[in-house]
């Protein structure tokens, strides 16, 4: 395809002016179509940079300078010498993966069901699945507290069976799950819609059972979308504050996650320990974003190569 275009280019113009030729054959870029005056263009660009730096860049930069103000050794010391801080890191690294794992299982099931079947109440579920994005996480936490409180039958049975819930890891996982519930489903639904049910039907007609169909056909087709959703869900789960704050009881060294610990250190004027832990939290988010970016790149590359293949026929 590329060489074909190249031939056409070379053959169509007898004048060997490569630059002019390239310009005349290049598809119209945004620059060519733009009609705004340069004044408006530069105002908009400056505004974009102002907001990006003013709201995101400078505060985060300041956070890191504060975290490292006492030197690198103090930074590590403030994180690793404090038992409660270490415990909070451990707790976050327990709760976030658990919530992500459970949401992955739920997300795969829900997205597949919602795209492949039409059933009564489907539209309602599609609408309500976004509820956690709309409801404040504090409300979520309170709901869980009321639901599992000692006056309800849920609380009664949890108590009778001796299952620890409130002020313990299960309620914190559940709060985190609730808040991050829509992320993976929302990532998977468009991907599943796009690939359609035909390949799955074809696999079934060729004798594949449900597990074989899922593992060999559905999963490879949605893998990148799923990974993307998992990373996004993970980033959000690590940082969850409000719902966890309500249900955990905030017991230092026991039910304090990283965000809760950062807030406590800050309230107790323990600087730069608060900034150090906060910057660690930020670094985790950057890592996730970096991974997401890499996957996005690969995704674009894949789309591009598929298109090229199609055009090549």
């Amino acid at each position, binding site marked *: 395809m590329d060489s074909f275009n190249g031939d056409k280019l070379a053959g169509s113009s007898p004048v060997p002016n490569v630059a002019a030729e390239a310009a005349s054959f290049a598809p119209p870029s945004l620059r060519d179509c733009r009609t705004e005056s340069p004044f408006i263009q530069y105002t908009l660009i400056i505004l974009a940079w102002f907001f990006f730096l003013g709201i995101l860049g400078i505060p985060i930069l300041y956070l890191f300078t504060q975290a490292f103000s006492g030197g690198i050794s103090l930074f590590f010391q403030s994180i690793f010498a404090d038992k409660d801080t270490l415990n909070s890191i451990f707790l976050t690294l327990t709760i976030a993966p658990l919530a992500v794992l459970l949401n992955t299982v739920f997300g795969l099931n829900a997205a597949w069901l919602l795209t492949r079947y039409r059933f009564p109440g489907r539209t309602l579920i599609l609408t309500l699945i976004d509820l956690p994005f709309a409801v404040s996480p504090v409300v979520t936490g309170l709901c869980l507290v009321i639901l599992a409180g000692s006056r309800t039958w849920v609380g009664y049975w949890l108590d009778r069976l001796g299952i620890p819930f409130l002020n313990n890891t299960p309620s914190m996982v559940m709060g985190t799950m609730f808040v991050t519930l829509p992320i993976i489903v929302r990532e998977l639904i468009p991907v599943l819609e796009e690939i359609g049910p035909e390949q799955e039907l074809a696999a079934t007609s060729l004798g594949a059972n449900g597990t074989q169909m899922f593992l*060999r056909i559905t999963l490879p087709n949605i893998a990148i979308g799923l990974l993307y959703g998992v990373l996004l869900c993970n980033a959000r789960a690590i940082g969850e504050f409000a719902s966890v704050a309500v249900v955990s009881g905030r017991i230092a060294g026991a039910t304090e996650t990283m965000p809760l610990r950062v807030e406590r250190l800050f309230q107790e004027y323990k600087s730069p320990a608060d900034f150090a832990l906060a910057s660690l939290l930020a670094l985790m988010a950057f890592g996730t974003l970096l991974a997401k970016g890499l996957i996005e790149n690969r995704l674009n590359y894949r789309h591009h190569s598929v298109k090229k293949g199609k055009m090549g026929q």
Partner: protein
Amino acid sequence: MSISVKNVSKRFGNFQALDNVSIEVTSGCLLALLGPSGCGKTTLLRIIAGLEIPDSGSVRYQDTEVTHSRIQDRNVGFVFQHYALFRHMSVFENIGFALRVRKWSQSKVDQRVSELMHLVRLQGMEDRMPSQLSGGQRQRVALARALAAEPKVLLLDEPFGALDAKVRSELRAWLRRLHEEIHMTSVFVTHDQEDAFAVADKVVVMRNGRIEQQGKPVEIFEHPANPFVMDFLGHVNVFHGRQENDVPLLTGFRGPEEGEGSGKWVYVRPHELDLYLHNQVDGSLVGTIIQVLPVGGIIRVLLEDPVSTARIQVDLHHLRAKELLLENGKRMWVAPKRIRTFEPEYSI
């Protein structure tokens, strides 16, 4: 393996997709389900495959009742309309899929896939991805994949639908030859009468969830059961007229406002009409030439009745056309070589 569909009905909400349909496909037969879109042909194919379950009626393969058994248990080869190739798998993996899920050994898979690659003439393309294939090649991969596990029945949904005219006619001829080689009971769905007539042993014409006519292609073309079938199988001119002592007579044009079922019409195919310079044949009508189109080996002439503005189409051999010195605006006499009449359809 024969297929027998008995009194099958299927409804989607308020839409009656199939209304008491029965067909018999004898063993080794290649049958075409033909009809306009929405006539229920695809639903019938999906019911035969096991992708849909009928509301009533039964489907049997030979002597086995399969109405409610699932598609993965029926061992049918199904070729989907847009092929539904597995995008993330090579041609080899696509074709070998049915064998892999059946846990065949690697050497047996290799052997069977190479046999099939040979059968569909795709040797050397094992490692290509579906996106690197042309439409015709994808279709053949889909067919090889469907044949891999030696199904008892081959079902194809609009197998030529997505192809351009040239590839389409090549594949038709190829599919016909393939069928003669493997002689598998096959059913395919199409809305194109040429597909049906070029490939099938038997054609079933459907409309509005019912069967209008079934039989051999020649029978159906020569003796259409009703005006719908006649019209669907190719262009047809409608006149007032009658048959008198074996002589076909035309008595008038059908005006644009005159409806379909009112009165008794005679139906004449474009190639069954002839043109004359003078009123030399009994029962001929006069019209004005408005267009002369050379179409392949024939000359297609469109005439208009100046009174009723009814239009008719006449296909002439190009030698005959030369003789008549056809040109726009010329008045010609139209006479039939043969006419067909149908009993009027009574409807409530």
